[in-house]
């Protein structure tokens, strides 16, 4: 009476309704979760009704499939994989969450594969038809996973190599790699009669070279500059007395994140300090900063001398001592035509411990007021 598809939909609808009742009793009758579960139930009832009316989803194909199943199930590797997943799960519980998560992923994947394989093997007595059923059900799941996994492995291996070599050699390697891919692709498209085994061997060889190189690079670690820069923590601007970092990111103004949330741009030009607010063309001497909100201020130096922008944000009491300490934040030293960002989050209004100001050491007597309403 009911088609396979409609049974599936009505089943989910029933489960949703039951879930909603359980949720109402155990959690909260007026929670949004109840609405979500009831929504699922209603939607699936509708889809099930349409499927039943139109006879759609009837994938049983009783005319095609043979009801008797006389083919013995084939050997399966999935129980073994499932067991490995279980080991990962147990080991992960006591060691590393990543291993635990990997165990869950393996168990789910192996469970799905095993269940669908078993289901397909009992679909009919025709093993070819059964293979077709299995592939139709699983290819759409397997293909994206395999492709995604392959791309991820290649990306990780390649990134290890790029992080290990110098920026100049990295650029050369990138060009060589891209050219090799282009040439191989071009040759394959030209030679339509090329043996599949030749293409496969080339791809495998390339993948092995990439993976081995990536492994070696990963084992050796990042290049010296990156290690030193990380140790120096050059992204931190807290130490206003420190000199310019050796590893200062001179291209930081190109970062999208820096440009996307800018409240104001502070400029030094011909020894004068000015501010410009986004949306207002004129120069201003006061910047309004929203309370308790991350606010990005850009500092752009157009003069020859190096400057840094300093935010003077009042004072605070050091816990247990009662000593008042000045709150100061600043950019790094900034050369000509360079830009640095200062990200402020001020939780108290100017009236409490202000006035707050932006100053540039070396440009005495000039300041931009920071107003926090």
């Amino acid at each position, binding site marked *: 009476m009911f088609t396979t598809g409609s049974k599936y939909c009505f089943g989910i609808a029933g489960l949703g309704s039951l879930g909603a009742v359980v949720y109402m009793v155990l959690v909260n009758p007026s929670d*949004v979760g109840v609405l979500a579960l009831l929504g699922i139930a209603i939607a699936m009832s509708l889809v099930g009704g*349409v499927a039943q*009316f*139109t*006879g*759609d989803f*009837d994938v049983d194909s009783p005319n095609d499939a043979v009801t008797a199943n006389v083919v013995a199930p084939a050997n399966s590797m999935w129980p073994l994989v499932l067991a490995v997943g279980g080991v990962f799960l147990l080991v992960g519980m006591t060691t590393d969450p990543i291993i635990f998560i990997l165990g869950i992923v393996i168990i789910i994947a192996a469970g799905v594969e095993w269940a669908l394989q078993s289901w397909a093997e009992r679909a009919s007595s025709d093993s070819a038809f059964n293979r077709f059923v299995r592939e139709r059900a699983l290819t759409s799941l397997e293909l994206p996973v395999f492709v995604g996994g392959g791309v991820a492995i290649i990306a990780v291996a390649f990134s290890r190599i790029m992080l290990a070599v110098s920026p100049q050699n990295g650029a050369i390697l990138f060009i060589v790699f891209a050219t090799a891919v282009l040439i191989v692709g071009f040759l394959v498209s030209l030679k339509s009669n090329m043996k599949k085994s030749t293409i496969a061997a080339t791809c495998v060889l390339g993948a092995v070279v990439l993976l081995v190189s990536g492994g070696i690079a990963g084992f050796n670690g990042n290049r010296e500059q990156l290690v030193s820069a990380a140790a120096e923590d050059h992204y931190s601007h807290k130490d206003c007395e420190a000199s310019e970092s050796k590893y200062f990111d001179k291209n930081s103004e190109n970062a999208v*994140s820096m440009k*996307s*949330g*800018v*409240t104001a741009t502070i400029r030094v030009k011909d020894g004068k300090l000015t501010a410009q*607010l*986004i*949306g*207002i*063309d004129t120069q*201003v001497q*006061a*910047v*309004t900063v*929203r*309370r*308790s*909100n*991350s606010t*990005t201020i850009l500092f752009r130096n157009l003069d020859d001398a190096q400057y840094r922008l300093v935010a003077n944000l009042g004072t605070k009491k050091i816990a247990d001592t009662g000593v008042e300490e000045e709150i100061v934040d600043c950019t790094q030293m900034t050369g000509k035509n360079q830009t640095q960002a200062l990200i402020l989050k001020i*939780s*108290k*209004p100017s*009236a*409490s411990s202000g006035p707050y100001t932006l100053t540039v050491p070396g440009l005495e007597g000039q300041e931009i007021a920071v*107003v926090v*309403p």
Partner: protein
Amino acid sequence: MSHDSTLTDSQQNLSTFKKVKQVMRLRRFGLGLAASSAMFLVGCARNAPQDTWQPKGDNAQKINKLDWMVFPLAGIVGVLVFGLIAYILFRFRDKGQALPTQSHGNPAVEIALTIVPALILSVVGVFTFKGIFELAQTNDTQMVINVTGQQWWWEYDYPAQVVNGVEITQPIITSGQLVIPTGTNVLLRETSRDVIHSYWIPALNGKKDAVPGRINLLRIQADKPGIFAGQCTEFCGLSHANMRMEAVALGPEDFAAWIANQQRNAEAPAQATLAQEGEAVFLNQCIRCHQVNGLKKADGTAAIAAPDENVYSGAAPNLTHLMSRNTFAGATFDLLTSSCRKNVWTASPEEFGSAYLKGVTTDCLNQTDLRRWLRNAPEMKPMYADPIKLARSDGKYRGMPNLGLSESDIDKLVAYLSTLK
């Protein structure tokens, strides 16, 4: 004879069955007609303050013009497509018939079904892109307002600037109702303190997301004085549906008066009054989150709110001029009684300014809702304000908790809040 009589019974049964089937069909048709008529008639609602088809400013007008071009086109395509789907579903439904001859590919149909939508989309695309660029321009900005969303209310702060000759010397901070001058290109700089929200006043422009860490720009302009409703349009948690807002457009003189009032600090209530007692309650309870500019502690120092210590977003509405706006709690509830609210909402453009600037007078104060709110805020508006369930937000509230105020304290607070004009 008996044979004839049996035939007659069968015929009668068949006739009855056909009649029943006809009645059922008529009923189904009637139901369908009633449902579609109801949906159609919804479009005729007169009290529809968020109607996107009634633009009240230049930016919304641009969108409206585009709508009038795209909507009929999309409507025709939609009716054709859904009609065809319904017809095919019904006509070719599975009735146990044999599988028809299968065919694959029809170049003529495929080319036609590619070219026709491409042509339609090209025409729509040209006008849409033109509209997008026009709505994105900021070089004609005459006023800037910072708009900050948080669960579940909007804060507006007006940086120091000169607007149409009126100088804002001290930044103004308010919430719930956005007040703008008429005929002025206003640039809203939107961001959020917690999750993504979306700002939408349909009568003035389209939607724009307020995203933490980003500043998104939205220009609005109102032709005439009036009040325009809107609501958050990005699901933002428990009380998303209650995160409302209103834009109030005032003529130049009325706007100047509003600016002058907003730049004043709150005045201390008269000595030995209920309001003064309410001020003490406010200093004891409400100041933990709500700022009132000019409010002083008993020792004479400025009372500074600390929402950053108590609220997840780090902010709570500034109440310095609470009674100058008509709503509270994220513009969800009216501070005005229904009759006074009606006077404001239905005022002519010429009379609107004076009606709005009256603020909330004593006889117009909606004491019922305000008292209920003070009595138990989470009961009126769903919020994450249960003190024992704050672990996921670092022990901070998302919304206003139940303060457990006594009726006496509520009386005093209402008296004090009424003075915040």
